[in-house]
């Protein structure tokens, strides 16, 4: 079964359940688990085990940590932790998403469990006991009856608003398509992204993007969920420019989706030592600042600086009108916003922060820009999100103050129109991954140099007028930094200079 090019089986980020229901067949005169058997024996009692063997098997299973739920002359229905199944079979219990028919003709990915290993049968969900002495001829894991998720389309819906798609529009405007055609896709480059979470939307599956199982840093949260949809949607921006990179999502949100562990998420990202960390979040402090950075800001800045010293390229969003320490740290690639309209004309996004820092060595925030929408809501990029998540619901509704019509999608279709410098940071991270894939020896400073020296100068518009109001002017400026990134030109620059 294939639908929209979706594979029958794909990676599951769902953790294994604590208890797995299964069926364990006690060996009788014949076995349905013999690979040569394709039909049922009609002989009475062909599969029935002796009472002595059944009793022995039940006793051994209980000693191994299984709970006996029901017994029959052929076998036992059990419940046990994954480790008990692994001890019994010598295999490994894994979760996989399998495409299944659902209600009303729809298709869904559901989480299934399998036992894998050298000695294990190839039949999905079936295992073989490690030893023939245990009088067990087959282990079957129960198929799930609980829906994992509704099935969002891997293709975006239309919207009456002007918007850009991922990957095509973003890749075209930021000029990465020729680089992709030449084979520069960011292969082998690991990008870590602490955010609200990551949901394995079929969009990522059908595009064959490589996403590692998410890591969580808030106890009690599910690594396969993203209640807000922010981490999921913004991640698509990375792959628009670096379709061959590997993303490591780090969920730093609580069960309501609040980003309560952003600093821990950043520290966790450093621990896994990726080439790039991209962060689409920050705080908001007084502007102009009332004084130098406080001890908290300095503690966070020291962590960022340490990552840069260790050779990690650190990308932070400039902010959507906010002023925060992270993008100001020297050596950070600070991501600002440029809006490109229907005619292809660029202007500084009035949704994005742009200023000269009075902290550290007075860096300009942003360094360079990605694609960001305009006020009031910057509904600009059609991005995949978990169906019914916060962004799916909010963007599908109108904004009253300031007035803004809905994004034209539904509240539970798994797609939403949004942006912000949250989108620019992963775009810059994708561009950097593409460069590092082609030129792995480049330092973070060299990547920033290549992106800055080749950026398209933006001369129209102003940064967030209510707070910064800096104009875009010929040459580097406080609204857009060096301008809008040009990935193809940056790759040429990198090839020629490093």
């Amino acid at each position, binding site marked *: 079964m294939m639908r929209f090019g979706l594979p029958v089986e794909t990676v599951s980020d769902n953790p294994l359940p604590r208890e797995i229901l299964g069926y364990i067949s006690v060996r009788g005169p014949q076995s349905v688990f013999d690979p040569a058997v394709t039909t049922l024996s009609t002989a009475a009692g062909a599969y029935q085990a002796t009472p002595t063997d059944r009793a022995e098997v039940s006793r051994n299973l209980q000693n191994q940590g299984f709970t006996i739920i029901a017994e029959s002359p052929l076998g036992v229905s059990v419940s046990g932790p994954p480790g008990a199944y692994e001890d019994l079979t010598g295999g490994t219990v894994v979760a996989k998403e399998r495409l299944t028919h659902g209600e009303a003709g729809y298709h869904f990915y559901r989480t299934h469990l399998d036992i894998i290993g050298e000695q294990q049968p190839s039949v999905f969900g079936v295992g073989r006991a490690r030893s023939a002495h245990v009088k067990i001829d087959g282990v079957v894991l129960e198929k799930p009856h609980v829906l994992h998720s509704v099935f969002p389309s891997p293709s975006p819906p239309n919207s009456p608003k002007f918007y850009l798609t991922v990957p095509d529009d973003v890749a075209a405007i930021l000029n990465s398509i020729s680089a992709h055609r030449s084979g520069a896709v960011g292969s082998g480059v690991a990008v870590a992204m602490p955010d609200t979470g990551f949901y394995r939307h079929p969009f990522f599956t059908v595009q064959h993007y490589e996403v590692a199982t998410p890591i969580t840093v808030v106890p009690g949260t599910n690594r396969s969920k993203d209640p807000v949809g922010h981490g999921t949607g913004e991640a698509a921006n990375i792959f628009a420019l670096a379709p061959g990179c590997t993303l490591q999502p780090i969920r730093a949100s609580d069960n309501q989706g609040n980003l309560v562990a952003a600093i821990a998420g950043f*520290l966790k990202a450093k621990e896994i030592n990726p080439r790039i960390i991209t962060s689409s979040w*920050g705080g908001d402090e007084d502007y102009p600042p009332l004084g130098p950075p406080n001890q908290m800001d300095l503690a966070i800045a020291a962590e960022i600086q340490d990552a840069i010293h260790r050779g990690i390229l650190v990308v932070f969003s400039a902010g959507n009108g906010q002023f925060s320490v992270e993008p100001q740290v020297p050596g950070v690639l600070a991501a600002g916003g440029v809006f490109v309209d229907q005619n292809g004309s660029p202007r500084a996004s009035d949704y994005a922060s742009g200023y000269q820092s009075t902290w550290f060595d007075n860096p300009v925030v942003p360094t360079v820009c990605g694609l960001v929408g305009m006020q009031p809501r910057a509904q600009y990029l059609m991005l995949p999100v978990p169906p019914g998540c916060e962004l799916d619901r909010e963007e599908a509704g109108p904004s009253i103050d300031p007035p803004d019509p809905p994004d034209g999608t539904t509240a539970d279709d798994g797609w939403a129109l949004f942006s912000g410098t949250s989108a620019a*940071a992963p775009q810059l991270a994708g561009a950097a991954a593409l460069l590092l894939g082609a030129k792995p020896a480049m330092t973070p400073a060299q990547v920033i140099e290549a992106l800055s020296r080749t950026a398209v100068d933006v001369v129209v518009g102003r940064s967030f007028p209510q707070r910064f109001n800096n104009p875009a002017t010929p040459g580097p400026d406080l609204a857009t930094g060096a301008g809008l990134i040009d990935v193809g030109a940056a790759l040429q620059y990198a090839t020629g200079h490093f």
Partner: protein
Amino acid sequence: MSEQHVELILQWEADANTDRVRDWLRQRGIGFMPMQSGLLIFGNKGTFDQHLSVSLDNITPPAQIPVPPELQNDVKSIMLPSPRRPYA
């Protein structure tokens, strides 16, 4: 509210006995990760309210909170950073 996850930044005194502080945190079920100048400590709000002798509900971040007497020889400050939010 007491279940709400919170992260705080703890900074060392010079010559701090860091093992002693780590043990103190561990015994109280407070998680930690090393930082350049101290520790990121985290856990649910109820745990901090119980062991830091101050209710975090009454504090507006960013703010310093009192260091428990047992840790005062080793810990210079404990700070509640301002909240971080997605920029979308």
